[in-house]
């Protein structure tokens, strides 16, 4: 029934033949799903066993996990000696997205505030560096504090009025902010060169050593990623992090406990925007070119997907989410066209079947 219904809906868009194909595919999927759910308990048991083995719950000792972690780190450090430039390129991209996703995770995952305009802060960081570098000839390290600081301040300023709103309205206001930022970048021709973008941004240097070479840049990104992981982890387990979680779980209850909810939400916004600014500056330095096209709403959604896919609030989950969503389309070039389609369907399926994400922590909920 369902498959017939869907095929009829599909019919006008691609004609009879495609609709028949869709009918066959959906029927097979639904039938096998029905068959599977008959053996639900056994299958579920196997999946759970495999999953727990993968996650290492109880199977690996603390020591083994630590060793594994250091091995991974070592592998990441020696990576440039073994792989081609193309892989380094992808790895740098992954790194930038990991920083972004971790930043958004602070806002959405820790504090439970849906921010759909996250890309605005990313854009702000990138454009700040691009402008300071091309107009005032400031180097990466001098411009970086401005990039990061400006993004954080913008996050703070947006949050001051916006936080008076409830969850879904807040999401829409942040979305509006993101779109306005992009429109300004697109139309303020005298400053941002409009849709042409800014080119000729220079690479960062350390003691007159240019990091333009891919492998050097890789180390720079790796260091920033490690810094992000380290700092967000520390903050998460600090007093501020606890306050965020308390607010996310129940704002009214937490404010009765004496937590100044507005203040901590402001911190969350500014702190998240801080990382977006960092990622933006790194992105501008890597590409040596910025244009409004890189900062669309879809980019915000992509980062949000990374956070949700991996598991809201879980740092390792989010990193994995960024890995998956950057690497998959890179590896399977042919499916690039279908990337957004799958992403959309994936969001729905995740929300329906596994709202805590693939590797989500326990007890993380999407309240606000």
């Amino acid at each position, binding site marked *: 029934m369902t498959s017939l219904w869907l095929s009829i809906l599909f019919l006008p868009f691609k004609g009879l033949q495609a609709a028949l194909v869709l009918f066959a595919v959906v029927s097979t999927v639904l039938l096998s799903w029905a068959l599977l759910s008959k053996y639900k308990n056994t299958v579920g048991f196997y999946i759970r066993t495999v999953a727990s083995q993968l996650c290492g719950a109880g199977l690996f000792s603390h020591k083994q996990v630590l060793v594994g972690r250091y091995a991974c780190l070592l592998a990441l450090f020696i990576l440039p000696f073994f792989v081609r430039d193309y892989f380094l390129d992808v790895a740098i991209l992954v790194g930038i997205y990991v920083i972004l996703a971790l930043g958004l995770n602070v806002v959405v995952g820790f504090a439970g505030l849906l921010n*759909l305009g996250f890309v605005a802060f990313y854009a702000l960081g990138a454009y700040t560096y691009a402008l300071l570098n091309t107009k005032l000839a400031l180097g990466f390290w001098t411009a970086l504090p401005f990039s990061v600081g400006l993004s954080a301040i913008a996050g703070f300023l947006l949050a001051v009025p916006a936080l008076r709103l409830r*969850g879904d309205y807040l999401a829409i206001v942040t979305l509006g902010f993101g779109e306005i930022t992009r429109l300004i970048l697109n139309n303020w021709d005298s400053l941002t060169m409009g849709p042409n973008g800014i080119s000729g941004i220079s690479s960062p240097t350390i003691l007159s050593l240019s990091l333009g070479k891919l492998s050097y840049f890789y180390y720079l990104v790796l260091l920033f990623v490690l810094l992000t992981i380290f700092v967000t982890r520390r903050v998460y387990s600090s007093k501020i992090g606890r306050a965020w979680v308390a607010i996310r779980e129940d704002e009214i209850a937490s404010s009765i406990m004496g937590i100044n909810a507005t203040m901590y939400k402001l911190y969350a916004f500014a702190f998240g925007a801080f990382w977006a600014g960092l990622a933006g500056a790194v992105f501008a330095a890597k590409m040596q070119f910025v244009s409004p096209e890189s900062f669309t*709403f*879809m980019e915000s959604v992509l980062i949000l997907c990374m956070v949700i896919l991996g598991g809201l609030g879980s740092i390792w989950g989010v990193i994995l989410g960024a890995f998956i969503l950057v690497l998959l389309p890179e590896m399977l070039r042919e499916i690039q066209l279908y990337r957004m*389609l799958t992403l959309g369907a994936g969001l729905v399926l995740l929300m329906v079947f596994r709202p805590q994400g693939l590797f989500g922590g326990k007890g993380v909920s*999407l309240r606000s």
Partner: protein
Amino acid sequence: MFLQQLINGLTLGSVYALIALGYSMVYGILELINFAHGEIYMLGAYLGIIFLAFFTAIGLTAYNLPLSLLLTIILSIIFCSCYGFTMEKIAYKPLRNAPRLSPLISAIGVSIFLQNYVMLTQGATDKVFPHIFGAAGFQFMSVRMTFLQLCIILTSLILMVVLRFFVRKTRMGTAMRAVAQDKTMAALVGINIDTVISVTFIIGSGLAAVAGLMVAMYYGLVNYYIGYIAGIKAFTAAVLGGIGSIRGAMVGGILLGLVESLGGSYISGEYKDAYAFVILIIILLIKPGGLFGKAELEKV
């Protein structure tokens, strides 16, 4: 010049109002921002083009133009309503008791899915709606109003009056208002909530389909991403008028259309799309209830 922009604004505004009604009704009942509602409008525009092309291909258009146009409109509305219905069943119904942000994220997913679905099946280039109305109209001093513009404004007004009647006077309308007030109580007095929600989605999608068709005829061009921006604008209209209120959606839509066309010609055309966002943000910050809405209290 001013009057001309006024008429353009009214035309645009009545389209926004029609889409805004869908947002408003769904929000009134489910407290969900149906992010994918704009895509239904886009589907409506595409379906109109597809069906009209189909009727042209089988020769009906040449034989009897009004009949084929009528069939196109009816079929598009039916299909869009079915899309709306299916969307609710797949993406929102399982999340009815989930935390508030889950259905919103799911709605974003549906929106992206539908956009790319149309892009992949129909191509990424602009689609042309055949010129059947031409530019016929009447001239009044320096102001021109085409028949199509008049048609759009009148159709929207009639549909809104009918909807108001439906919600106020019929049995189903009463049930809808009851569910909007309190779902549990409505269920206790024997109202089938699932049916009411489905009907809401069907009506909202039907209205969006009409809006999509009219825009396709008006501009003559459609693209797979028109739904996103139109959706945001219609949402702004709904919020402006007070979300959940039918009269508010009407007024909000027309106001927004006027602001856009007047602002576009007197202030800056480049930032035309930004006006909606600015209005939205200002309204939400100053008077979140909108012009006709009432302030909401958060319950513990």
